[in-house]
């Protein structure tokens, strides 16, 4: 199957041309490198002087170089009329009526993904050599990091749905084993279990969805063929809708969407670099990637164009609000970030739901940098604060660890959507893409998703607020912990700065359409290179042109979120100062009051913020209803298992079997009385029966 089939059908002025390049053709080498590293570490790691970290570092470094090279080749071959993807295909096997091919598919989405994955993976490797130094399972840790990188790269370059399933499950297993890395503690292995099980629930949808699409597309797993058929109307809308809903379950579990996100905060039990790599930057966006990859199916199945609401967008929007409000209720810094991740993933899914494909991928791209930076920063902080992640035991770390503070602050601002950092651009792109204009002016977009833009704006304010709180609790005020805070080493700080730098500038690669301050050729570069166009496997998407009103308004919203929180904190401190002034009698007493007050202040922020009750309510809903259902399902299953086993299996089914045996035994008990052991009795019986038989023969024959 060559890519020529997917040549542009539309009448474009310039025909789409085939991208070429050694790196693009041989992209299969990319996942192979970390895979080899996995085996090397697994079998030889313990004998190495580095205890297994070097092969991982080396291969992820090479992978990063490879990705960059591939990216450059891709950029060089993107044409104006559209670019056909580079497809490599190998027949895995062809049997039993279905052709099973594996292969590579390189288009803009792939290029963006491999860059993100290999970059974050490389930085996390560097970071980890310091962070998990001396861990009893250092080797095992690096082995699984390598395996994860390999699987994730395999996922993003795959051209068939079955290959996606393979990689999808493999990243799940890596996630499981890394979450339960410190499995001596049952709560850690429990978290791993929860993650894996929740993902398996979603996998039902994946398996079914892939099965449906396989038959609907006439017996193929090829992503390109499925998408093309879906878009050309070769598959009925109902089938697409069912398949898309099934796949959505997989997306919800992997990408932490409502209502299957509960595993993600628990997954923070794993080592922090793992959280940064797997549970923030890469694996959790696999769901987003799946939707983006099979966008033809989702686009047609949910009838995204010209609509104002659909399931995908709704789930995304709900998740983004849920995640953001929950982030307020947390005292654990990693959990704040975890809920923030959920919220941002909701953003991406919502963007895909409203048809803003490029914006979603762009947000995925920028989010990976600033969220990885935040996670790695939180690891650095915990390192300094004696291993705790509890923000109540931090505070005032600004002075002790300036680098961590600065990078954390940059990343937080980027996340909060402060211009001109990366988050601002990608977030605005999404808001514009909803096309829910109403008050803001602007043009374009695929529909009129007014609800989505409102929810997006609310989340912007919430995000800004909870990040402010998080930064304040961690770095400002006085130190409340017991350890001796200190700045982390170079191998931790350098990755932080790299990511912070990217978080600063990444937004500039996709300046919005119609941005008047720069030449037109500078705008939408990301979209131009990443979004497939001039091909049949990708829908034609209307790009929105954002208005200044919207941009300014969203900055105002974010700014309001930040300043309200700061004001709130400040006002409380003024009260505190006044209190201390009125009670100057004793300095010691004052300190006590201040200390007490600060503690009170923080607990006050949690419980008495304006959105406090809401967050608590959502939290409660999450803990009792959603998680409760999961737990109840588990418990019911075990109980049902017990009942079935003890009552039905042991008593009825087995009972019948045993009853037969008992009957036989009783009959035997009766019959044994005939067995006198006396030969002549037997003889009598024998001869008597011989007579009977003879008689029978005589009579009947």
């Amino acid at each position: 199957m060559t890519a020529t089939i997917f040549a542009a059908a539309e009448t474009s002025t310039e025909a789409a041309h085939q991208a070429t390049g050694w790196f693009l053709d041989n992209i299969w080498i990319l996942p192979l490198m970390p895979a080899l590293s996995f085996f090397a570490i697994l079998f030889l790691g313990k004998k190495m002087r580095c205890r297994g970290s070097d092969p991982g570092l080396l291969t992820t470094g090479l992978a990063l170089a490879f990705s960059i090279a591939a990216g450059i080749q891709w950029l060089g071959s993107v044409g104006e009329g559209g670019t056909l993807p580079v497809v490599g295909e190998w027949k895995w096997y062809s049997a039993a009526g279905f052709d099973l091919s594996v292969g590579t598919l390189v288009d803009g989405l792939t290029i963006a993904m491999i860059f993100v994955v290999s970059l974050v993976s490389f930085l996390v490797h560097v970071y980890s050599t310091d962070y998990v130094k001396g861990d009893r399972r250092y080797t095992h840790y690096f082995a699984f990091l390598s395996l994860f990188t390999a699987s994730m790269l395999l996922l993003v370059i795959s051209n068939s749905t079955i290959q996606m399933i393979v990689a999808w499950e493999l990243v799940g297993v890596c996630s499981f084993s890394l979450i339960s890395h410190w499995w001596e503690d049952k709560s850690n292995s429990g978290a791993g279990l929860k993650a894996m099980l929740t993902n398996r629930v979603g996998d039902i949808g994946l398996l079914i969805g892939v099965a449906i699409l396989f038959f609907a597309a006439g017996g193929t797993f090829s992503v390109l063929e499925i998408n093309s058929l879906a878009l050309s109307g070769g598959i009925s809308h109902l089938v697409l809708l069912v398949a898309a809903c099934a796949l959505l379950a997989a997306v919800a579990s992997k990408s932490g969407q409502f209502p299957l996100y509960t595993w993600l905060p628990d997954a923070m039990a794993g080592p922090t670099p793992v959280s940064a790599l797997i549970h923030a930057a890469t694996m959790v966006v696999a769901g987003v990637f799946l939707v983006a990859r099979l966008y033809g199916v989702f686009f047609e199945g949910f009838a995204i164009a010209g609509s104002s609401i659909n399931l995908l967008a709704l789930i995304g929007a709900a998740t983004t609000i849920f995640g953001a409000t929950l982030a307020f209720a947390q005292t654990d810094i990693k959990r704040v970030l975890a809920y923030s991740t959920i919220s941002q993933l909701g953003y991406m899914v919502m963007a895909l739901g409203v048809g803003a494909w490029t914006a979603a991928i762009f947000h995925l791209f920028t989010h990976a940098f600033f969220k990885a930076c935040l996670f790695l920063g939180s690891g650095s902080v915990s390192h300094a604060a004696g291993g705790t992640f509890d923000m109540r035991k931090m505070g005032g770390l600004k002075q002790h660890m300036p680098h961590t503070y600065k990078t954390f602050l940059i990343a937080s601002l980027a996340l909060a959507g402060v211009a001109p950092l990366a988050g601002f651009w990608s977030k605005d792109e999404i808001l514009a893409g909803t096309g829910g204009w109403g008050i803001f002016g602007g043009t374009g977009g695929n529909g009129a998703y007014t609800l989505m833009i409102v929810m997006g704006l609310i989340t912007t304010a919430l995000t800004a607020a909870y990040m402010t709180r998080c930064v304040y609790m961690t770095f400002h005020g006085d130190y409340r912990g017991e350890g001796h805070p200190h700045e982390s080493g170079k191998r931790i700080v350098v990755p932080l700065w790299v990511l912070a730098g990217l978080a600063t500038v990444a937004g500039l690669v996709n300046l919005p359409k119609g941005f008047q301050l720069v030449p037109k050729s500078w705008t939408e570069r990301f979209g131009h290179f990443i979004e497939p166009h001039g091909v049949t496997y990708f829908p034609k998407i209307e790009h929105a042109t954002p208005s200044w009103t919207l941009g300014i308004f969203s900055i105002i919203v974010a700014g309001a979120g930040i300043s309200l929180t700061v004001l709130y904190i400040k006002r409380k401190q003024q009260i505190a100062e006044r209190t201390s002034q009125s009670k100057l009698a004793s300095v010691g007493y004052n300190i006590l009051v201040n200390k007490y007050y600060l503690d009170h202040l923080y607990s006050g922020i949690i419980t008495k913020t304006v959105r406090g009750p809401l967050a608590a309510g959502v939290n409660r809903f999450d803990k009792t209803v959603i998680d409760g259902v999961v737990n109840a399902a588990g418990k019911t299953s075990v109980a049902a298992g017990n009942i079935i086993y003890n009552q039905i299996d042991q008593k009825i089914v087995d009972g019948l079997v045993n009853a037969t045996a008992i009957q036989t035994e009783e009959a035997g008990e009766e019959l044994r009385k005939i067995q006198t052991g006396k030969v002549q009795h037997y003889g009598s019986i024998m001869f008597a029966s011989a007579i009977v038989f003879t008689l029978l023969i005589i009579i009947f024959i």
Partner: protein
Amino acid sequence: MNQFLDDFGLSIMVFVPLITGLIIMLIPRAKEELIKQLALGSSLATLGWAILLTVRFDIDNASTLQFVVDTDWITAIGSRYIMGIDGLALPLILLTTLIVPLCIIYSFNHWPEPANPKSFLTLILILETGMLGTFVAQDLILFFVFFEVVLLPMYFMIGVWGGQNRRYASLKFFLYTLFGSALMLISFLALYFLADGTAAGLDVVNTFDMRALSDGATGAIARTSQLWIFAGMFLGFGVKVPIFPFHTWLPDAHTEAPTVGSVILAAVLLKLGTYGFVRIAIPILPEAASAWAPVIGVLAVIGIIYGALGCLAQKDLKRLIAFSSVAHMGFVMLGIATLTNIGITAAVFGMVAHGLITGMLFFLAGSIKERYHTLDMSKLGGLLTDAPRMGWVVAFCAMASLGLPGLAGFWGEFPVILASYSPAAILSESMFRTFMVIAAVGTVLAAGYLLWMLQKAAFGTAGGGSVDLTPGATPHNGDGDDHLPKANTAIKDTTKREWIAWAPLLVLILGLGVYPRLVHEVVEPATEKSLEINVGNIKYDCLELSPSSATDCFNEIRNRNG
């Protein structure tokens, strides 16, 4: 040489273990070394011979029987000595010949109580002959004989070398299977008397020859009779599989059997039943198969869910693995019930995969029991600390068993789900799509119990305890190890003997997972042929028609014959 292989290859492969077993019987018990070497040597020779046959096997014609032997046997009842292998049998033969030497290696110098390696090895070798014979037999009576030969050694193995409750378990196993095979024999006899191959251009009237029977000699049998005959076979094979609700012998037998017995039971014996379906029931009686397929499908999905729920309720590790077999065999049966090429090929793959994975899990259970002297999961734990390598092997096998892509188990599950989305046209599509969803839910439950098992057995600390570690608290500071549990030095990690016995299985689990083509390529043509309905030279495609036209199609075959 090649001619010799063609003529005697199968007979030699089947009977070498038996003959060695008889020779071992004649050797005095005191010469234990000689006995062991002889047994191991002969099982390895059988493996080598099987590989030789595989090399000679013409893969391009995997659908035709090869190495066919056809001579008189019991002329009085028209039963002939017919053997032959095609793509369906080949993987299972290789599996069998591989598992047996591994079992012998595993138990080398380390016999279950009451030792007596002489009898133990003799039984294993007789068992091997029975299993191989079942896979190569092409005559119903010959098949039946081998099918039954398997019973007795297994009975003794459980009854003599088993656990506490062994007499109950062995008896249950024996009687249950015997009950099934009695009905099966009746079905075989009925087939014999009703078979008529004249209309199909075959020169046979009453025959036990499977080739003739599947080539149209059964076409004239009335639908009702077909249904009853199939029912008999269904019970016979179904008990062996075991299909819900005939499964209760399995957990008992597994729990009580010695490790090696469990391994052989899980790896090969259960496959005799499913193999019977694919080899005999479906090709010979396609019409009845299509009528029974929904029943099989329902029982299969019940088995999947039921087995998984059963697993969640278990406290004993071996019992849990045994129940998981019920669930996995449910997948195999669901694949068979779809009556499609994809489904049945996946089912055969599932048999091989289940043989490897569950066999491996039972090996592990045996080794764990040896080290901890219990299989009670509430008392286990910390295997990863005490014996890290074995712990990882357990984790690997659990992952394989829950159907992780890239390992063998996946290819027995996913294609089955795929196939049930679109079963043979004669079957109800909506019904099988429901099965698909239920089966998919079964995969989640499978993940549930296997991970739970893993958590109980491998994670944490012995006695089911857990150390209170604050997540992420200082384990990276080097001194973090102090408050971690210390490994129990009394527990030995995987020994060399165990590695030798396990390595081939582990490699195959991974290898077949990455490259399933190895099996599919051989099985697929044979499956396709087994689903073809040939009467003489005419090919009918009744299974691929809608239910009403299929009835006409079958009637047409009958009229042609009648």
